[in-house]
């Protein structure tokens, strides 16, 4: 795999990095307007490079080929543990590159309009470029540590963007929550890296591989423990599988589960999902880019990257499937009850990522179809979900409210937004021939092929739920009458915002026609499941019908249905009170660990130090009393001293 573009693939992430510098240098004060243009041009160039890269990959490389096309030594821990920064080019990284650069480009363009006039305009684009840079670095990572590095960087740019409106308390709280929850998950990721680093390194040193490479420090090109290529190689996996870990699990499973917790944190899988709905406090384009299309699927990407490991472990993959399955159901249920349009979309995102995880979980080394399906869904989801968010952003921009109860009847006011939003809604609902149908169908097919009937059932049910809640939102937002002044005064967004919508709309329609699965998994044959197709279309129709039945007319069927559910409805509406549980745990940590630690430090440790000083003074004062001023007492002390010395000399032998 050679060629200018391959060997200079680093330029793709470098472009946004340069854009940060340029914005920082030039887009200050009154020149802030330039920021958007700089950012867009940079990412646009990156997009073009990505396209070029993809084309030359398709034309030159073998299908499914994978290679590190460029790398420099970055962090040298020790022999066989030298971390490089590099670019790993293979189908899934190319796929993600395409998704990230394209969605990012569109979001940049959209943001020029959306953020116009904001006082933090250039700051916004700096953060956005930072995010893009980090995400591209993550996608291209050829080793686990580079992945982690950019993993953290996307986390922090997400943090910065969620807290973009830094005077709003809820934005600050949400940003902190997002960062801390994902960091908590990253802790396990890091632990996984430590485990893999140690045991893979051990294996390299013990095996003949260790002998082959140079012993000295100049071994950047030698086998490195944290490279995906090393970790995913069969002897290493077999070795890890053979070693005992903890809790009766084998080492490989332990390592993969640790990594998966990291992935679950970033992808907001249950129970680490709590940050994502709150993250909607950030600007809407940010939600579209980070919290729908790209960053949150990093977890899926990570699992896909380490798929051989997960597959070899088996158990770890089952956990992935279970978590994905549960999250997709759980989030879909909550999505049905939320009133904040962005929150509905957020829960929908959760649910869809759950879908992808589920797809990964049902795959196996022998039947990797799920992997392809997951990537396919990732691809299509990125577009229609970004579209939904940007559409929602357009609506919010117009109505100045997030609450669907304030909207309604926007179909006429905002025709373009309406049309694209509708396309996306249909796409996500899984109606053929739009994008979502194909990818979802493939996932369900994979589940059925893998004999995971329960998962298949849940998947089908969630498909219906998805159609239901998405149309619920659609109906409440665009159909019916205006429910507020804001909605009445709403008007279509400027072209700079609607053009990205249109582009995304096109992708949402056509995305499913691209054979992503074949691209990702060349040689794996896929057979069409007419049964699955039928069932999934039926589920979508049922969902859509239910939505229209409940919300379509001027009835209060929805309300009465909610009332009839009673406690369960409230439970779901309050997101199963998971947030409250977290709050409680956090408070407990504050109250029962942090406060005692601080108290202990001041009142025990420090007091002990002060006590030693006090003891010295106390002794000093006591001994000072001996100085009575009585000369005869002094004399007696001296004579006693003589006697003591005498006794000492007699009794104590050296």
């Amino acid at each position, binding site marked *: 795999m050679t060629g200018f573009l391959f060997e200079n693939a680093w330029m793709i992430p470098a472009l946004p990095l340069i854009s940060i510098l340029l914005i920082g240098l030039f887009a200050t004060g009154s020149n802030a307007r330039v920021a958007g243009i700089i950012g867009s041009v940079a990412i646009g160039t990156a997009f073009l490079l990505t396209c070029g890269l993809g084309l030359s990959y398709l034309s030159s490389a073998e299908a499914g080929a994978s290679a590190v096309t460029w790398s420099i030594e970055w962090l040298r821990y020790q022999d066989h543990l030298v971390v490089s920064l590099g670019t790993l080019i293979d189908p899934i990284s190319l796929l993600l590159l395409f998704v990230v650069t394209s969605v990012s480009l569109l979001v940049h363009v959209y943001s020029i309009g959306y953020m116009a006039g904001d006082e933090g305009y250039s700051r916004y684009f700096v953060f956005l470029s930072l995010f893009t840079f980090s995400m591209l670095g993550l996608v291209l990572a050829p080793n686990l540590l580079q992945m982690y590095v950019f993993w953290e960087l996307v986390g922090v740019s997400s943090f910065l963007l969620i807290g973009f409106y830094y005077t709003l308390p809820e934005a600050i709280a949400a940003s902190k929550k997002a960062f801390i929850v994902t960091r908590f998950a990253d802790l396990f990721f890091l632990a996984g890296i430590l485990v893999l680093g140690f045991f893979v390194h051990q294996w390299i040193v013990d095996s003949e591989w260790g002998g082959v490479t140079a012993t000295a420090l100049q071994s950047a090109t030698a086998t490195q423990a944290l490279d995906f290529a090393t970790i995913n190689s069969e002897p290493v996996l077999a070795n890890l599988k053979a070693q005992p870990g903890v809790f009766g699990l084998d080492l490989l499973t332990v390592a993969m589960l640790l990594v998966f917790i990291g992935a679950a944190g970033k992808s907001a899988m249950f129970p680490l999902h709590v940050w994502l709905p709150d993250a909607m406090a950030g600007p809407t384009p940010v939600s579209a880019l980070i919290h729908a299309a790209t960053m949150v699927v990093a977890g899926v990407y990570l699992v896909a990257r380490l798929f051989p490991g997960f597959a070899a472990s088996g158990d770890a993959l089952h956990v992935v499937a279970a978590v994905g399955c549960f999250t997709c159901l759980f989030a879909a249920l909550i999505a049905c009850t939320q009133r904040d349009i962005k929150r509905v979309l957020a829960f929908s995102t959760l649910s869809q990522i759950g879908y992808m995880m589920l797809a990964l979980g049902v795959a196996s080394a022998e039947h990797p179809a799920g992997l392809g399906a997951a990537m396919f869904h990732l691809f299509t989801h990125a577009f229609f979900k970004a579209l939904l968010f940007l559409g929602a952003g357009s609506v919010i921009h117009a109505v100045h409210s997030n609450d669907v109860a304030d909207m309604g009847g926007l179909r006429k006011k905002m025709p373009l937004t309406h049309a694209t939003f509708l396309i996306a809604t249909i796409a996500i609902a899984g109606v053929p021939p739009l994008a979502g149908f194909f990818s979802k169908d493939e996932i369900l097919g994979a589940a059925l092929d893998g004999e995971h009937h329960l998962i298949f059932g849940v998947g089908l049910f969630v498909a219906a739920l998805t159609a239901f809640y998405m149309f619920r939102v659609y109906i409440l937002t665009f159909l019916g009458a205006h429910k507020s002044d804001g909605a009445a005064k709403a008007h279509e967004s400027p072209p700079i915002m609607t053009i990205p919508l249109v582009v995304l709309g096109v992708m949402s329609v056509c995305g499913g026609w691209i054979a992503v699965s074949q691209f990702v998994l060349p040689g794996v044959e896929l057979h069409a499941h007419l049964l699955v197709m039928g069932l999934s279309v039926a589920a979508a129709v049922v969902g859509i019908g239910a939505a229209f039945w409940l919300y379509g007319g001027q009835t209060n069927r929805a309300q009465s249905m909610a009332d009839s559910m009673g406690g369960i409805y409230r439970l779901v509406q309050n997101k199963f009170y998971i947030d409250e549980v977290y709050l409680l745990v956090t408070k407990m940590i504050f109250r029962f660990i942090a406060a005692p630690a601080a108290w202990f430090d001041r009142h025990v440790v420090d007091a002990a130090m002060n006590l030693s000083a006090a003891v010295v003074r106390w002794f*000093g*004062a006591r001994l*000072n*009393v001996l*100085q*009575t*001023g*009585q*000369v*005869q007492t002094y*004399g*007696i002390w001296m*004579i006693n001293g003589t006697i003591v010395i005498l006794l000492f000399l007699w009794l104590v032998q050296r």
Partner: protein
Amino acid sequence: MFPTPTITHWLTLSALLFSIGLYGIFTRRNAVGVLLSIEMTLNSAILNILIFNRFVASDEVDGQVLVLFIIAAAAAEAVVALAIFVSFYRHRHTLDVTQANHICDQGNSTS
């Protein structure tokens, strides 16, 4: 009648004298009494040296010479002591050594 005193007897005498002197130093309240007791202990030491000169190194007179010097030094000491006593008396109108504790009254605080 009496057996010839041996070195042990003499040393015992000197030790007794020394102890009596020390006792006096620590119990007499009058400074002059204390001074007298000090002279007594000095004398015991002198006696000691003479005894050793006689019984251990009788062919030399080093001990006796030393004693002469000691007597002179003791006299000098007594002179200085008496001078100080006089000036102390002028301030306090007493020679009670237990009264000599004004320094501590002033400076002995335990801040």
